[in-house]
């Protein structure tokens, strides 16, 4: 993390650059979701749109976490703390996935109509 005045001044430019990427990323996400010729995969919302949207969101979130929240320069203790939280989230998502193994499924909803 920048601590000297010179390093902080240098970081400010990085923050502006990252901010610009976040704005652009948001616009791209909206365009992909709303403009027909940018629609990936099947016509309308589908798995491809979901993956693309979440990938852009994850990229943006990573920029916020690593640059704005200074995770790229943090101590090990922080990685352990935040990492354990993320692991817990993945476990929760895993539980949701397990629920999809329920044999009683309405095929209509999983066939994409």
């Amino acid at each position: 993390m920048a601590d000297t005045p010179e390093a902080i001044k240098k970081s400010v430019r990085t923050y502006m650059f990252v901010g610009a990427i976040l704005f652009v990323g948001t616009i791209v996400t909206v365009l992909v979701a709303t403009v027909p010729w940018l629609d990936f995969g099947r016509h309308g919302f589908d798995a491809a749109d979901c993956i693309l949207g979440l990938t852009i969101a994850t990229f943006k979130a990573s920029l916020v976490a690593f640059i704005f929240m200074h995770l790229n320069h943090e101590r090990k203790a922080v990685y352990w703390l935040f990492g354990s939280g993320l692991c817990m989230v993945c476990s929760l998502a895993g539980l949701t996935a397990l629920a999809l193994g329920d044999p009683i499924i309405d095929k209509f909803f999983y066939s994409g109509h």
Partner: protein
Amino acid sequence: MEIPYVVTPRKDTGLFNSKIAIWLFLASEVMLFGGFLSAYVFLRLGADYPWPERTLPVLPGLINTFVLIGSSITVVFAWASLKLRDWRKFQLFMGITVGCAMIFMVLKGIEYNAKLHHQALKLKDYSVVEGHLGVESEDGKPVLNHKGSTIEENLIFVEASKLTFDTVRFYKPWVEELLAQAEHHHSKVALAADVTAITKVGQSAEIIAKAGEPLSVELLNRLQAVHLAARSHNAANRTEALRAEWVTAKAANPGKKDWQIASGVNIDTAALAPTLLGEISTVPFSVDPPAKLDFHPRDIKAAEGQSRLRDDTVIDGKLLASPMVFHNIDAIDFQHLVMKAKEKGIDPEVAIENSWLMKNSAFVREAWAWHQGEVKKLSAELLKAHGVGKDGKPRYTPTHKELYRIGWKDLAKKAEDDGRTKLSGVDAAKEEFFGPNYKARGDETFPGLSVPREQVGFASKFTPAWNTYYAIYFAITGLHGLHVIGGALVLAYYLFFGKKMYLSDPEWLANRVEIGGLFWHFVDLVWIFVFPILYLM
């Protein structure tokens, strides 16, 4: 006393205290929001109704995303300004950050307000209508209720001649409401007959309340007290009698198990009767002359002749026509109807043709015919752009939503095709933000619709009650909104009360702002996921 490690880091962790604390907190926050987002996925995949894809207006969500990203940049600039010992710049950037938080909450409030005033109705055949309800009117003027406010046309009316209250379950505010309504109609609500009960063992029944005594909460409370005292006394007597029966039965059947003699253990009700007091479980009141009372649909189980409220109050009287009247409808949705038709093996087109809306609304028929034309155009465009697959079928076809939902934008386009008002510039932008503009586009674009009560399946504003999508939408965005408010308060505290600390120990304040900023970035980070998931997917 000097607090250790507020500026210098601890040797073991390499971090100052509050940084460890905020990261611990953020880790728990990750789990909290992760849990909610998992719940969202679970609800979406398990929904037994067509999930409302891309149903929220994108523009407010997009602006809010920009606002939060902007505030994330300014908060880190505020921190950098403190590190560079520039108080003025800190004030500027932190002021912008707090301002962004306020803009975010205002926009969120506008969005919520639109949802909470937008009506949805699912008919018995699962077709859905959306729009805005009207208010009761006579000769063009709104009818006012006993409170002096307008009456939304989604009430159930009963010409009540008798009200029978459950003395235990009656709900005091409703009693007062019924009384006020009866008074408004110049009707008197009074005891239909003397209420008598035995209040002391061995004595004859006495009059607790006389016929003609006006309805009041106090009277019901008095009757409730007599009833509960009698019920308690009677229950004790019955228990005592049963115990005595058991003692006798056990003495007569030595060595036998309880279950072997249980069927023979019965209370002698005839012998017990003289020891019991009079219970008053219900009490009838006459309404003279019969008054037109109104009820919210959720509170009443309406039926011809006799209706029942949720607190078990029975209302005798004629059920009056109580249609649900939309002054403007802005969406017609057959998605759920089609889903149900497919489940039953019925052709969706046949199901739509047989729906109440198609049979009873010329506008819906007209809109549906226009919509079919639009779907054909879209299908042709998709075929032209993407061709056919190996199976000879078009590679891309219109979505379920495009096939079976006519949204407000479709209705607006239909009106424009018919040569009616076309909005542009600010009006068009406002419509994107606030939803359909009934005034500018007129009733021909968004006409009214009256739905008889017997056709109403389920009606609600766009609140958590409407479906699980709105439940999780309000849960996630509401929780996120609370985080925005909390974060903004902390940052505002640094902005308005941080000068003293800045003058005494600027590094300490910089560390504090870093901690507040970390929380603020996290709030932004959550929104980065919430926006595409709730607004775009």
